[in-house]
């Protein structure tokens, strides 16, 4: 035990470890905020689809050797978010099917492009780290840290400003629209925020695990809390704590960051499920 602690305090003397912790916590905070909305609006599949699109975009960016590939990926993902929402609201085209098409298509093409054009010597390592997150969180450059921090601040600010509207649109869209809330606009906003979160979180957990980061804290909080505000606050706290522990554990045991965070999230989910059950029974 003392070994682990001294080990950890040694790591914490390096600034790059602090970078990783700060960025990880910020990303975890943003991704948990929209969890409730995503789960309840059945938007989670859009989140999934978008993360695959982001993977494809990263593949393209790395092949054409863009220096600032995060902006390229952001633009592509936001555009896809808008398109997916369009087809999703159109009842004539099967929304689910088109999302599946786009997401699996992006995955396949992304891999293909990486395979054919990549000059990297460690191809499967590259692919794996894009999908499942990598230790690249420990090799973040100063610019990437700032971009992530800026995106997080934007997401949190947007969420706070539009909190009441997001609640109204998530709870009952037709009522909200009837009393004059422009629900289409807010759905669009939600989709764009999701896209931003996904791009920001790619570095931390990789594109396949993002949905877990978004959904688990919200589901855990919903086991125990009953109002939208308390669930949102609790989900944010859970997510931050899990990310913190996940990152520290992964550093000490040299485990992959993304999957460690998700594993901690899963453990917390079961704890909250038991608390929820116990509360229900004691009533």
């Amino acid at each position, binding site marked *: 035990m003392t070994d682990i602690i001294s080990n950890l305090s040694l790591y914490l003397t390096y600034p790059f470890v602090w970078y990783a912790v700060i960025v990880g916590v910020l990303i975890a905070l943003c991704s948990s905020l929209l969890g409730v909305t995503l789960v309840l609006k059945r938007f989670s599949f859009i989140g999934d689809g978008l993360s695959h699109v982001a993977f494809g975009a990263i593949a393209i960016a790395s092949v054409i050797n863009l220096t600032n590939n995060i902006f390229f990926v952001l633009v592509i993902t936001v555009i896809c978010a808008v398109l997916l929402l369009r087809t999703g609201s159109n009842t004539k085209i099967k929304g689910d099917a088109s999302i599946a098409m786009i997401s699996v298509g992006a995955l396949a093409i992304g891999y293909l492009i990486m395979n054919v054009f990549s000059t990297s010597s460690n191809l499967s390592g590259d692919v794996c780290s894009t999908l499942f997150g990598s230790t690249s969180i420990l090799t973040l450059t100063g610019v990437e840290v700032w971009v992530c921090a800026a995106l997080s601040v934007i997401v949190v600010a947007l969420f706070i400003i539009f909190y009441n509207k997001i609640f109204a649109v998530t709870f009952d869209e037709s009522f909200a629209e009837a009393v004059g809330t422009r629900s289409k606009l807010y759905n669009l906003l939600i989709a764009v925020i999701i896209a931003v979160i996904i791009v920001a979180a790619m570095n931390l957990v990789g594109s396949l695990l993002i949905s877990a980061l978004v959904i688990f804290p919200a589901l855990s909080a919903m086991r125990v809390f009953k109002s*939208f505000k308390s669930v949102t606050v609790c989900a944010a706290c859970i997510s931050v704590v899990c990310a913190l522990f996940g990152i520290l554990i992964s550093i000490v045991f040299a485990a992959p960051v993304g999957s460690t965070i998700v594993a901690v999230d899963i453990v917390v989910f079961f704890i909250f499920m038991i608390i929820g059950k116990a509360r229900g029974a004691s009533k």
Partner: protein
Amino acid sequence: MAQLSCKKLCLGYDGHEIVHNLNFSVEKGDYFCIVGENGSGKTTLMKTILGLQPAFKGKVETGDNLKNNGIGYLPQQTRVQRDFPASVWEIVLSGCQNKGKFHPFYNKKDKALAEESIKKMGIEDLKKRCYRELSGGQQQRVLLARALCAASDILLLDEPVTGLDPKVTEELYRLILEINKKYNITIIMISHDIQAAVKYADKILHIGEKNFFGTKEEYLNSEISKSFAREVIK
């Protein structure tokens, strides 16, 4: 001028016309009931009044005395997901959506309005409760309180008493009548409860093969009511 009027209104979906040539007008303070068989287009009409769905032909005109932010709405079925975590207070407050201007946060006036609606509906003791754990009747009152927050002029109700027991139904009708008479808010209600419609309404609109619009007395004497609700009305 009437508060709300429709002339030669045609409604439908995907090029298929459901309601043909509808004419009616509603004055401020009216208690207006819409009746008709299942699938005759009552909910569709309400959505058009709310501007959620465009009409085929004709349009809904609103009088000058109706500010565009004074309509409250109680949907027929609220497709609220079963798991939604929300307290009664949060839901009622969400009725205070200011049209036009952008207010990100609720101010004192909104909160006072929500408090008042909660009081009017007699659900003060439920304020902190979780919506999904309430009974159907309690949920209906919460949604009515939310609609009241938005309804300074008109309250649209789509089958408000479906699934409620006779006692709660009676109470809800009493509340609606009180809103109508005491606060002078126009009521537009869709109902299959023809007895109650005849008991409370000033004007009745019947949608069907043939449309009818007139006062309660005119409706009772019309052919349509005789064939539609013969058994029910004594």
